[in-house]
């Protein structure tokens, strides 16, 4: 609504003409100026400006709804189920039913932990017919690191849903619903995002996966403000995509090692009690998610994948600077490393909600 035209807001004719003459076309143009700047620019009195701003503000501001109507829309609308179940009992319970729609969910973990495997499984789940608990819809899979393997996808399918995949033509149908994009650079990625917006409107896409966000950025940009700004646009855009189409969006993120933890402290807290150099565990095992704190604020749910003595765990919303090898609470784990190769089907243990 920020780009709504002033001329269509039914302001008094005289004043709306003045706005047009001064090249103030949208609400954004007007609301970025102060009352006095507007008076100078438009050459009208304070009361006219004030009433015009009030009028423009009222029209530009989004409509309200009560939380109750929001809840009703979530629970009653069958076309837009609130969650995509992961079929991992513990995780589904911790997430109130699965990966939520309309928001960003981020998977963070070291290399080889199974982020891509998890994404493959999710895209299969979304493409399954509704009778099998899936969404029966198309999936857009943005594969930045060229890790997507259709062979592996079918393999996971055969092992998790043998009865379905043995039916003739089903494997083809499932895999046919997954559209893979492989952008090579950030600008190509930006382009494909814009195309996605169009196809989301036309087609039955119910899941968007980006694997991974980090590879795009770390290759092209140095640390610094330019990187932050670049990402800023993508964050807003992907968030708005998720929101207006009410689909779940899953992105993966890598980890970086950090040798000291002062960056996780406020100045009023003073220096760390432990002393950075003396603690031997800190130097080698301090892993944090990449892409920085601005990005971390933007994702709605962060799932951290990690391995502890051969078992894989998924945790939600942990302390961002936590040493990733000392879990405070684990949500679910898979029985053994070997089984993961056949399918990511984790069994839930000790689960309760805590954010």
């Amino acid at each position: 609504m920020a780009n709504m035209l002033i001329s269509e807001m039914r302001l008094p004719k005289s004043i709306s003409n003045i706005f047009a003459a001064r090249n103030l076309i949208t609400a954004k143009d007007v609301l970025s100026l102060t009352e006095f700047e507007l008076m100078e620019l438009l050459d009208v009195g304070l009361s006219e400006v004030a009433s015009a701003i009030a009028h423009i503000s009222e029209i530009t501001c989004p409509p309200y709804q009560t939380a109750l109507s929001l809840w009703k829309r979530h629970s009653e609308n069958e076309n837009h189920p609130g969650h995509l179940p992961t079929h991992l009992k513990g995780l589904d319970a911790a997430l109130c039913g699965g990966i939520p729609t309309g928001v960003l969910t981020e998977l963070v973990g070291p290399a080889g932990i199974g982020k891509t495997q998890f994404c493959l499984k999710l895209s299969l789940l979304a493409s399954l017919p509704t009778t099998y608990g899936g969404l029966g819809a198309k999936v857009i899979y943005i594969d930045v690191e060229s890790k997507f393997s259709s062979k592996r996808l079918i393999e996971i399918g055969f092992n998790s849903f043998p009865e379905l995949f043995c039916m003739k033509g089903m494997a083809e149908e499932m895999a046919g619903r997954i559209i893979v994009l492989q952008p090579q650079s950030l600008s190509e990625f930006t382009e494909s995002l814009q195309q996605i917006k169009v196809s989301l409107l036309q087609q039955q896409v119910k899941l968007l996966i980006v694997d991974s966000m980090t590879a795009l950025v770390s290759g092209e940009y140095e640390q610094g403000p330019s990187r932050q700004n670049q990402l800023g646009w993508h964050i807003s855009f992907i968030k708005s995509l998720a929101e207006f189409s009410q689909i779940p969006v899953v992105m993966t993120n890598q980890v970086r090692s950090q040798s000291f933890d002062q960056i996780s402290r406020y100045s009023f807290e003073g220096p760390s009690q432990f002393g950075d150099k003396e603690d031997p565990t800190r130097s080698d095992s301090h892993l944090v998610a990449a892409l920085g704190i601005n990005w971390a604020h933007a994702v709605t749910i962060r799932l951290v994948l990690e391995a502890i003595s051969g078992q894989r765990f998924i945790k939600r919303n942990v302390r961002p600077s936590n040493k990733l090898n000392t879990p405070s609470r684990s949500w679910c784990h898979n029985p053994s490393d070997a089984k993961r190769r056949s399918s990511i089907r984790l069994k839930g243990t000790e689960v309760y909600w805590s954010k």
Partner: protein
Amino acid sequence: MEVSRLAISASTRAKLISAGYTSLSSLSTLSPFNLATDIKIPEKEADEILKLASHNGKLDNTKGTQAVSGGQTAWDMLKEDEGLRCITTSCSALDNILGGGINCKEVTEIGGVPGIGKTQLGIQLAINVQIPHEHGGLAAKAIYIDTEGSFMVERALQIAEACLSDYNDLPRRGCNANQLKRQPKDLLENIYYFRVCSYTEQIALINYLGKFIKEHKEVKIVIVDSITFHFRQDFENMALRTRLLSELALKLMKLANEFKLAVVLLNQVTTKYTEGAVHLTLALGDSWSHACTNRIILHWNGNERYAYIDKSPTLQSASAPYSVTGKGIRDSVSDHKRVKLM
């Protein structure tokens, strides 16, 4: 005082000055008709100018005298503030250091790292403002402005259920047998939710809030989750950002005063290089940090969550542990009484 400081349009001002009217005193003896014929404007406009001039002149003259219009004595303010109730955070340690909870008529900024529980605290306050009078609450409604899309309605329902079961178990002070038991959904109905998708909408909404609250007088808390998001993405002109933000802060402060409601702004964190080390600090820069009355920083201390009062004109700097549970914000499990004063 000079004519150039009058709130009139540029061309009218130019006409005044070119006709020789440079100071307010030169306008004071004129009649509207004289002025109108002198500088060739309609008599109605001339009347407006004279009104403005005499109004401004008066403000100028009363400087230093006792009856400053619009002022209020400290005693009256004290009396008025005594009648205001605080909004509890549901965590007694936190309420303790805040002097009872979040204060009405004040702008409170709450910031912290991702996942520390900012949104949780926001939802908790939107529910807690509805606690009825007989349980020490305000029995009011809430406005929740969501700029990030992180408001989880399922979570709000959980917190509402927990809140209701908490105060339904307590004995009532004013016994009211006929009163129907409230349902969690009733609480949800009293939260007005705005989803804001750009900074222009954010400005527009804050401009419009005054009118909205006049129509919905029961609103006693406005929560903005978060004030930062749209101002952090895609903003190249930093001077413009600072100006827009300070204007927002002023408008919110005015709202808080006018309608005696609490304004809670959630903020994100960023890193800052001071004294030879990189530290975390709340986002939006130094000039913004002056904008809010109170500033609370949520942070991790070991594996416990702590809230620290970073800035407040009335409260002592202190920190208190809290925890985020299935029921919402609650006392920290490990320690109920320890409040560390700094």
